[in-house]
């Protein structure tokens, strides 16, 4: 009997990845996880906020310290031309990435009547439109012939409601729609698209104190704790690998069981 043509699940040697967004700790954790698995990693900010741009630079340095190639850029993901030009430049200076992780994230908490048009527009632009623009540019610049992996880091708020998050939930749900549509459009090209949906993480705004006794919200999470960025890394590596070609169009929850709560 012939043997399987198996591929390693957690080895990204020789791959080039692009991680977009490091305004929260998951950008760093995922970038370093991909680098640990052997990938060269380009890291870009989701906005021109100075702190985020500097964080992208620091992550690039950390990736290089692991012996991998890296590059960082400051992006504003609400500007499609910025993404397209940035990706072209990354292609020239770093090489065209075959893995894209979209981790841009902007949250707004307000009752719907108080959300201004500008605020609503920005939340849609960063979370949803940016994911669309980035996917489009990634595919325009895609290194043909390679295996492709698209990964959206989204949120349990895309599928479950809480008060004051209408704008954010609308935008994140849009990313799940983009994910399923992309999975079908790219299915014949060995390019997959998946989401990792985070629950309440230890950086989620508005989560309250980190002590279980003092936090009703934390007691509601089956695991009785908030998630850590590092807990997204291994799954990101798996879904980015050549071995993950049969996963597509899915939303995988890393949420301490909260999405299964009654």
């Amino acid at each position, binding site marked *: *009997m*012939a*043997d*399987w*043509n*198996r591929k*390693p*699940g*957690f080895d990204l040697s020789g791959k080039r990845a692009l991680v977009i967004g490091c305004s929260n700790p998951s950008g760093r*954790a995922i970038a*370093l*996880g991909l680098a*640990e*698995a052997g990938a060269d990693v380009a890291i870009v900010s989701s906005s021109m906020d100075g702190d985020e741009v500097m964080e992208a630079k620091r992550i690039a340095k950390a990736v290089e310290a692991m012996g991998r190639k890296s590059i960082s850029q400051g992006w504003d993901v609400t500007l499609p031309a910025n993404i397209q030009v940035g990706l072209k430049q990354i292609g020239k200076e770093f090489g065209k990435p075959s893995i894209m992780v979209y981790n841009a994230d902007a949250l707004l908490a307000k009752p719907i009547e108080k959300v201004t048009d500008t605020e609503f527009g920005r939340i849609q632009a960063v979370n949803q439109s940016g994911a669309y623009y980035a996917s489009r540019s990634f595919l325009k610049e895609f290194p043909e012939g390679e295996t492709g992996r698209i990964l959206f880091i989204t949120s349990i708020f895309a599928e479950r409601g809480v008060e004051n998050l209408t704008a954010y939930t609308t935008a994140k749900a849009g990313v799940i729609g983009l*994910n*399923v549509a992309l*999975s*079908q*459009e790219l*299915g*014949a090209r*060995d390019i*997959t698209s998946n989401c990792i949906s985070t*629950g309440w993480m230890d950086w989620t705004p508005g989560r309250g104190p980190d002590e279980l006794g003092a936090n009703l919200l934390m007691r509601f999470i*089956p*695991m*009785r704790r908030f*998630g*850590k960025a*590092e*807990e997204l*890394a*291994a*799954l990101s*590596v*798996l879904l980015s*690998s050549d*071995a*993950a*070609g*049969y*996963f*597509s*169009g*899915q939303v*995988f*929850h*890393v*949420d*301490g*069981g909260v*999405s*299964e*709560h*009654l």
Partner: protein
Amino acid sequence: MVLEKLRLDGPPRRVIIVTGGSRGLGKAMSISLAEAGADICIASRTVSQLESAAAEIKAAGGREPLIVPTNVQSPADCDALIEKTVAHFGRLDVMLNNAGIGDRRGAGDRIQDLDDADWHDTIEVNLHSTFYCSRAATRQFLKQGPGGVILNVASGTALRSSPQSLGYAAAKAGVISLTKSLAAQLVGEDIRVNCIIPGFVAQSPARDDEEAAMRKQRGRFITVRRLGDAWELGPLAVFLCSDASSYVTGESFSIDGGGLAGGIAPTGYAMAETAVSRG
């Protein structure tokens, strides 16, 4: 480093029982888990198949597996499976409930023709077995102290209609539901419970060109234009059995080549670019 958490060689070295581990998906996952350093016990009915699978696991670089002939429809057999594994390896860390049969009794029957015995057989082997083994494993986990993993294997047929296998689809939907409820029940004891939902996956490498051609033809109807291969479940099983999935419980992971995300039009159907709707 984060990826070290994927290792299953300890300390302590993880002990994993895989029911239905002598062939197909179970054997493929057993090989990956053994490669990651775990001690494996494979269980199924047929001794000759168990022996052959054990040899393959060892040949792939794994340690000597334990084989325990088991009828997972028998609660006593399931209890004995856990006891024998603990007697041999000294502990149990993961119960991987993979045993199941899709096309045994009653498959293809219309409901008016499906008799009680066939229905019960299908539910027993696919759902009751998961309950029996999970219960026995949990009793052992609780003896050992906090920690433990239950990993179930369901089927994509549970998520959409499956007119040719009423009992199988219902049983596998039960496995998904049991996963969620058990996860919530056992989270306080630090026992995680998750589920893998395979779509159309080939159980073994194609035996000849004819079989390869047949699979290629079937693959045309799947989003990624091919059937899955059993080995592709291996890395996911390693992730879910390891500490790298420490914040994941109650979750079901579909691996179906994009099938579930589509399925509302023929594979390859593209909306015509002339199609517009003006609102």
